[in-house]
Every structure is written in C-alpha cells, then in structure tokens.
C-alpha cells in the first residue's frame, strides 16, 4: 500500500472533544447579541399585540429530558405575558409537565411579578392524561376534564376561570412542547377546529417538522435554544429592566457560547471524517 493515510479517531476521543468544547465556554459565560429571525418575531408579536387582560393558554408539554432547551423559552413566555398583564392559564398533557409549570411559576412568575395574583391573573390546572383526547374535550367544555385546579379548588370558584366555558374563550395558545402530545396536537385539535391562534416553542428536533404549519396554522415558532435566545434578546430590547442580567437570568443567551463551540466541533468532525474517508480511499486505490 502507498500514499498518505489519516488515522481514525477513537470514539472516546470524539466524546472527550465534545465534552471539552461544551465545558470550556461554561467557565466564561459568554452572552452574545442575537439577531431575531422573522419566525421568532412573529411569536413575539402575537403576544405583544394582545391587550392587557387577554386570555392566554400556556400548555407546558415537556419533561426533564428537554428541560434544558424549553425551560428558557417557558420563562421568556411567562415574563412576556406578565409584562403585558395577560391572564395565563397553565396546564399540561405530560405527567412531568406539572413540575415544569411549578418551576417556571416559582422561579419567575411569583418572585418577579409580586402583583400577579393567583386566581385573578393566573391559574394552574395541572395535568390530565389522554393526549389529544383532552384537547378535544376542553375545546368544547374545559370544566368537564378540569373540574378543579391543581390544588383542588373548584374552577367555578376561581375568578379567572369562572366564566370560561372552553378553549374558544382564549385569545392565544402559547404551547411549549417536546413531542407527542404537543404543538402539533394543539394545532390539529384546538387551533384549526376552534380557529384559535397558536404560537409555539419547541425542541430543535421537532421544529423542522412543524414548519409546514407556519404561518397560517401556527403564528410563529421557536425552534431550540437559539430561537429562545432570540426571544430573550427581543424581551430585553422591549423591556429595558431585563438588561440587568445579574438580577434576571436568561439561560438561553448564556448557553449560546457552548452551543456555538459545539457546533464548530461537529462541523470539524464531519469535515475531518470526510477527509479521512477520501484520503484513505485514495491511498487504498493507489496501493491496489
């Protein structure tokens, strides 16, 4: 055999490279400006255009496995809705979603918006199993499936939900979803049949699959942590109090540093893998 050959990299070294390029930027906490894309701006505008007191349904359909991507989005949505003084109803179709609602309300809504009163400005309906079946029922009758809120209080005794009959009473569905059941089901079983505007934040894996719904069936969508960072930058620009990033944590913006380095590493690995393949193939053909 003749010719120059590139050695194959052991997969453990590949793992080490990935770990290193992600860990290294964590120590520096780079927070870089983001240029929002049109599709993200559409989500922002769909919230921004609502008048104070408008009703927003925020289904939090995700789990710890996607929390790193979606919790920053959920927090940004909650901050935005609270700034606009919208009335928020949380619920979830995932068993683990109730913990996600708990985190976002305890970490963001309650401490940062002390005037926001439970029962008057926001309510948490909790979890119900059934996936799209739940959506089908609550499109017509919310209290049939959710007779009480998460703490067991009757919805007829809560000011926010007293006069709510079904999903058609909501001005916007702002879905945060990681898979099935999620944004797709909210579009198919609530947005389209009920003619209710839907905007969404979702994992990067899901985002391309939901692009066909945009812009007619989905007002806009946030796909992954990059889009979450763009939304956070829009929020900071519109509401200057968020410029104090010591006081207000914007996780997506700080995670873009490790994200960028990791992307570069993957691109490098793809190029190196292809270079190794072609060079070694030529060497083998030259020796044959």
């Amino acid at each position, binding site marked *: 055999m003749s010719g120059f050959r590139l050695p194959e990299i052991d997969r453990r070294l590949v793992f080490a490279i990935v770990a290193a390029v*992600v860990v290294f930027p964590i120590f520096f906490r780079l927070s870089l400006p983001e240029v929002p894309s049109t599709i993200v701006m559409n989500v922002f505008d769909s919230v921004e255009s609502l008048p104070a007191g408008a009703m927003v349904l925020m289904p939090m359909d995700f789990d710890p496995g996607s929390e790193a991507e979606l919790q920053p989005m959920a927090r940004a949505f909650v901050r935005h809705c609270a700034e606009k003084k919208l009335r928020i109803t949380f619920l979830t179709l995932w068993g683990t979603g109730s913990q996600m609602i708990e985190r976002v309300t305890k970490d963001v809504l309650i401490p940062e918006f002390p005037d926001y009163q439970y029962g008057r400005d926001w309510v948490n309906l909790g979890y119900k199993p059934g996936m799209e079946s739940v959506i089908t029922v609550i499109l017509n009758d919310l209290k049939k499936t959710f007779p009480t809120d998460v703490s067991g209080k*009757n919805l007829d005794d809560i000011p926010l939900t007293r006069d709510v009959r079904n999903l058609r009473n909501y001005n916007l569905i702002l879905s945060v979803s990681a898979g099935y059941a999620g944004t797709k089901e909210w579009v198919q079983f609530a947005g389209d049949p009920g003619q209710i505007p839907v905007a969404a934040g979702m994992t990067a894996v899901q985002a391309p699959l939901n692009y066909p719904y945009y812009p007619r069936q989905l007002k806009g969508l946030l796909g992954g942590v990059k889009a979450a960072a763009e939304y956070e930058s829009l929020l900071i620009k519109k509401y200057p109090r968020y410029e104090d990033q010591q006081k207000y944590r914007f996780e997506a913006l700080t995670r873009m540093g490790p994200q960028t380095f990791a992307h570069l590493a993957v691109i490098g690995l793809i190029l190196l893998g292809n270079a190794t393949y072609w060079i070694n193939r030529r060497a083998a053909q030259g020796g044959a």
Partner: protein
Amino acid sequence: MPRQRLILFGALGLFVVFLVYRVATGAMVNPLEGGPALGMWVAALLTLCIFSFLAGDNPFYKFAEHLFVGVSAAYWAVKGFWNAIVPNLMGKLLPEFTANTAIPGLRKEDGTLPAPDLIYVLPLIFGLLLLWRLAPKGQWISRWSLAFVVGITAGLRLIGYLSSDFVGQVRNTMLPLLVVGDGGLLWVDSFNNIVIVVGVVTGLAYFYFSREHTGAFGRMTRIGIWTLMVTFGAGFGYTVMGRIALLVGRLEFLFVDWLKLASP
C-alpha cells in the same frame, strides 16, 4: 492489573480526593448535612453513573438505568391515579365521597356538588378489563378496552390529520407563483413560492412508487430527492443543536450547581 484499569482507578481516586477537599473547604455543599445537599449529591452521582455509559456498559450505568425505570413507572402510575382516576372517575361516580376525602374543591363554595353521573361506570369497567391482562386466565377480555382505545385514536387521528395535515397543507401550498406588489413583480417572494410549490409536488412525486422513476417523471423525482435531502440535512442540523443544548444543561448542573467551579 491492566494499564487502562489502573489509569481509570487512579483518575477516580484523584476525583474523590478532589471532592473531599472541596467539601472540607466549604466550596461545595456537604452531603452529610442531609436535605437538599444530599439530594444534590444523589442527583450528581446518578448523572455521572449515566454518563459512565460513554466508557461502555457497566454496573453503575445499569444501576442508574434500572432505578430510573422503576421510579418513572411509579411516577406515571401515581400521576394517572391522582390526576384522572380520582377526580375524573371517582369524582363523577362518587362525588360526595371524593369531596370528603380527596378533593374538597369538587364542592363549590356555595356547597353545591355535582350529581353522580353513572355513565362513568363504563370507563371503570373498561379500565378493570384492561387490568385483566395481568390475570392468569381470560386475558382476551382486555381486547375490549384496547378496541375502545384504538377506536378513539383512529377516529380522532382521521379527522385531525385529514383536516390539518392534508386539507390544511394543500391549502398552504396554494401560493401565487408570481407575486405582484406596489412596485411591480416581487422576484424574491415569487421565487420562494415557486420553490415551495415545486418542492412539495416533486417531493410527493418521489413517494409515488407505483410508476418507475424514469424519463420526465424520473427527472421530477430527482428534484424531489434533492428537496428531501435538504430537508433531512436541516433536520440533522437541528437535531445536533437540540442534543447539544441538553448536554450543556447537564454539564452546567455538574460544574455550576454541584462542583461550583463556574458561576451561574
């Protein structure tokens, strides 16, 4: 002892010494304090057990994986019980009993309680039939419940997919191929719409396997394949982005929340 194993044990030993040092100097929370500190350590050690799979299948990974399977199965069963069976089944069949024991909020502030709705005996029966699958004999009866579930799913999906994913997408694809604005022909919008319409039609043509992909049809399907390859490439790019984000989250937990080597 093989050299590799020696290096591994050496590294582990150094890591343990490092942890002890940091706890002793107060740089990290002390697990012996119990409460959230112990919980943090348990979470961190389980995280490391799962990450150990990168070195190959091993007892630590198996331990963490089996623990997760058991805990998550119980989690979903408990959530299903307290979030559906108690409020939506017991609450409908025995509202007074449920209001007195588990969900006082079923009774409104004015004291009214919904009347029992005996139609909910049906899901109770179907649910119990489903559980009969575990019985040593007569498991076939659980097919009745499965048939109900399959019927609901088929009916819902047929309408949902037909309306949103078929009719809705056909409507979304009906775009003007020449977009005219105030200043005349809008080249960029027209080009984009043409690409979308051509991409959808050729992509669909590619999936038509009842005819050989030759001649003009073959050229059409070739454009379809290119559209689909671009689609899959974007899907791959986004998948990489998504998975890296999850890794960033876990490594932040380890280095920021647990080891406190970096600031939040």
